[in-house]
């Protein structure tokens, strides 16, 4: 499944069970829209870690990374890149 679709599906099942998938755009502001709060954020992160096998470091947790489905997708994308050698 396309990752955007998969994230959308998760957000809907978890937070908007009465909403059709087509209604939630990838650019919809989930924070300003009252869909995800700080507690919800924890659920999203826990799911991302498990589903995409990410090791999410606390410092990366800027709420802006989770503002929209597209932002979450970008976040997963970045987190999956091999860490740069320093």
């Amino acid at each position: 499944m396309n990752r955007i679709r998969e994230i959308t599906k998760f957000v809907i099942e978890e937070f908007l069970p009465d909403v059709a998938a087509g209604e939630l755009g990838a650019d919809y502001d989930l924070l300003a829209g009252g869909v995800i709060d700080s507690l919800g954020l924890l659920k999203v992160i826990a799911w991302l870690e498990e589903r995409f096998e990410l090791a999410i470091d606390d410092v990366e947790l800027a709420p802006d990374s989770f503002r929209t489905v597209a932002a979450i997708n970008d976040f997963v994308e970045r987190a999956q890149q091999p860490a740069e050698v320093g």
Partner: protein
Amino acid sequence: MSAQSLIECFTANARRVPDAPALVWKDTSVSYSQLHARAIQVSARIASMDIGHAPIGVLAAKSPDSVALVLGCLMAGCSFVLPSATLARTTREKLFAQVGCVAVLSEQDVDLGATGQAAAQPALTPDSARVTFMLTTSGSTGTPKVVPLTEGAIDRFTDWAGEQFGLRQHSRVLNYSPLNFDLCLLDVWATLKHGGCVILVDPDRATDSGHLHELLGSNEVELIQGVPMLFQLLADAAATTGGVSYRSVRDVIVTGDTISAGCLATLPALFPNARLYDIYGCTETNDSLMHEIDPTTLPTGKIPLGLPLPGVRTLLVDEDGGVVDGAGTGELYVWTPFQAAGYLDPGLDEGRFAEHPHRADGSRYFRSGDLVHRDVDGTLTLVGRNDFQVKVRGVRTNIAEVELAMSEHDDVAEVVVVAMPDPLAGHLLHAEVRKAPGAELNSLVLRRFCAERLPRTSIPSTMRISDDPLARTSTGKPDRQLLIRTITERRRG
């Protein structure tokens, strides 16, 4: 001027206008002389029991005979406890035992064959300090608390109501609530005191909006008092029949709960000739504050509780026990000329009835448990229940404020919010929403609406939006305990 005796006035009405209608019940009219004759029978029967001043229990499912039963008790000068007709038998028996009732009367004890003998009344010695009505608080759990009201308190209240709403012979007043409710002191007992006619709504049909519509339309009702649910039902009926209005109604009293802005907005068209009042009170103090709503400029936000009725004293007491002077917020303490001095069981008074925090002024105030804001001009507005405060992630959150904000969405017909215990957050809010008929409301829309109006922590974590009516208690208030149980089971199952 001392207050006039309710029962003496009723008796005088039976003599003065014997054929005037006193009650309308299921399309049948009962005249003052007929009602009086039945009350006399009851009174004679109580006298024959020779029980002195011991209290009796009255089972008062709504009917003309139940009205006669109460009038008979008043004639006999006895104290009587009037529990809800829907109380479980064991709870009721416990209640009667707790009060020390020596007898229990029900409508079967009224002789239906009675004929008018207005002269045969027993001697009555008015005593303003004597307890007559003992009402009960509508606690959802355990045995209800008994609130004893003196003859003086009842007489003062029924005089105020008569004066305020111009009750007189031929006044036609709708009685919506069950007979054991304090609201009946106005719509049943004050009306009978002043010679008017009470149109009794059958509790079995109280949620049948078609029936209510018919009853109002055919009875030339002038005064209508009810909880917001009544007006919501009438508004729903009007929406389906299209633009109906009740032109005979002169006074509309909304009481018992906060009316939603949406429901309020329907009232001016429903009752084009009426003055609209919002009354705040409780069983312990009876009506205490009143706000007249201007139908031409309906409030968009909260409806104020208004100002104290004549003779009523209020205090706002802050968290530290200090009295708030001028503008500010605190728990509302009320003293009214109509109130109980305390519960029948003085052991229950702790924390509910209290002296003035700083100086004894001879008044025993009732602590309402409501958090109230006072404006610079003295107008009081409800902030929420003291016990509606919960902590969500450590943030003090007022459930009533969340409900109010959500109810302002046009597509929300009704909403109730409950706090579900959560091991992580302390509490998480759940909103149960009935959407307006035909509306396409979903949680995406409602969450955005909330996010624009409420702090993040006040946005309910879960919402259920449906066309199902909200579960309500016998008093018409949302049944929060039942909802919490239902959600818990839903999540488990």
